[in-house]
């Protein structure tokens, strides 16, 4: 039973470029974009997307991370997890267009927690969601606004995202 690569490094780069363009388009020329990635790899992706956006249209975006450990709905089910840092850009999120970024969208619970965390930091004008991979099987009414790749999968399968900054290589694999 071997892992199958569904996105190679070039595919990932292309997907992130496309997402960056789509996000800028949806902005319709006004508003401050804040990309907040969910650690660990969501935060890495948020940085990458923001850099691409900044190349295309400088000065309208910033990036940070939003840790959701303390907002999870399953805290009591496993030993206590250590939170990762939350870094909100200095201008904050009030009245901003916040784009939550994560690597894989699955049950939707992580994003639910992220929304709760976000609300405790301020009041964005609008919140969007960008993910590299949407693998289906939602347990909550959550959908992504920007998707790198739709990847139908069985719940028994395991989807893994690797990024250069964290894992040394860029690829997305699925294995039974």
């Amino acid at each position: 039973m071997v892992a199958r690569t569904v996105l190679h490094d070039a595919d990932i780069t292309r997907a992130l470029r496309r997402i960056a363009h789509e996000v800028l388009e949806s902005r319709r020329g006004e508003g401050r974009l804040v990309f907040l990635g969910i650690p660990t790899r969501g935060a890495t992706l948020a940085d990458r997307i923001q850099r691409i956006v900044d190349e295309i249209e400088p000065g309208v975006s910033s990036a940070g991370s939003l840790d959701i450990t303390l907002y999870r709905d399953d805290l009591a089910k496993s030993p206590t997890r250590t939170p990762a840092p939350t870094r909100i850009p200095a201008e904050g999120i009030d009245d901003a267009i916040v784009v939550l970024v994560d690597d894989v969208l699955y049950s939707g619970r992580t994003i639910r927690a992220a929304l709760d965390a976000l609300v405790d930091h301020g009041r964005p004008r609008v919140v969007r969601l960008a993910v590299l991979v949407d693998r289906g099987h939602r347990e909550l009414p959550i959908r992504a606004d920007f998707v790198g790749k739709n990847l139908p999968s069985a719940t028994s399968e395991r989807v893994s995202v690797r990024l250069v900054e964290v894992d040394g290589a860029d690829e997305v694999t699925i294995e039974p």
Partner: protein
Amino acid sequence: MRHLLSTRDLDRETAIRILDVAEDMAQTADREVRKLPPLRGKTVVNLFFEDSTRTRLSFESAAKRLSADVITFSAKGSSVSKGESLKDTAQTLAAMGADAIVVRHHDSGAAHQLAHAGWIDAAIINAGDGTHEHPTQALLDAYTIRARRFGAGARGRDLAGMRVAIVGDILHSRVARANVWLLTTLGAEVHLVAPRTLLPHGVEHWGATVHEHLDDALAAAPDAVMMLRIQSERMRDAYFPSAREYARVWGLTAERLALLGPDTMVMHPGPMNRGLEISSAAADSARSTVLAQVTNGVSIRMAVLYLLVAGSSGTAEPTGGEG
């Protein structure tokens, strides 16, 4: 980690982890909404057999900021003061559904007993037991030193290479004991200063350098000087001739303050006896971390409560997660 009874039980990794989580907790103070949800629905009981407004308020504040329900049970005017035993009090709290008990008691070993006697199955946090230990105080002191020294780059660091002097009634001080074990675990060099009458038997085995004169310890150029309160209520007999003599030989006077380096921290767990162990000049100087220690106390206690109460009571950290 099921209980926090003593800093002696913390290894380097766990200690750093607590300090790092406290950094996350500290951030919430700057937010719009200063509350976090992880202890929602959990009950934290403050069981204070000994009077202590500041520590009790600090724990209350920490628990509330994590959305826990807080019940405070202090000795005066309670069934405890009417002679109810520790065992009966513990079992009553268990029957009321406490998830964590923060306990301060005048007898050494009380927290250990609550944790191991089998009377209650809650997380036990030692907020000071007799002259034995005060782990959250040591943690907030270490956090304060680390934050002052490394600022934004403090995360993940220990205190290797730093020199800390602890001055005062070491014999009766649970703050001193807790600090010696933790600072040593974090790699700091500890210096103890006290007249011989205030040094415990066997202190030479504690892994710290012992001085009988404050001037000797200051000559070693410490990064932080921690002054302990002279606890007159604990003394049963004359350990030194007079307050005046104590202040002269072991007090952090304005003269001694002037000899300290500009970055040397002046610390005190509070409450202070101004003019006895610490001069007003020292207490109010820019080097003083006294107020920061109080603020950091809430963050540390939030970190401890989160780590002990939020998860299930297992020991291994889970790996990976789902989206």
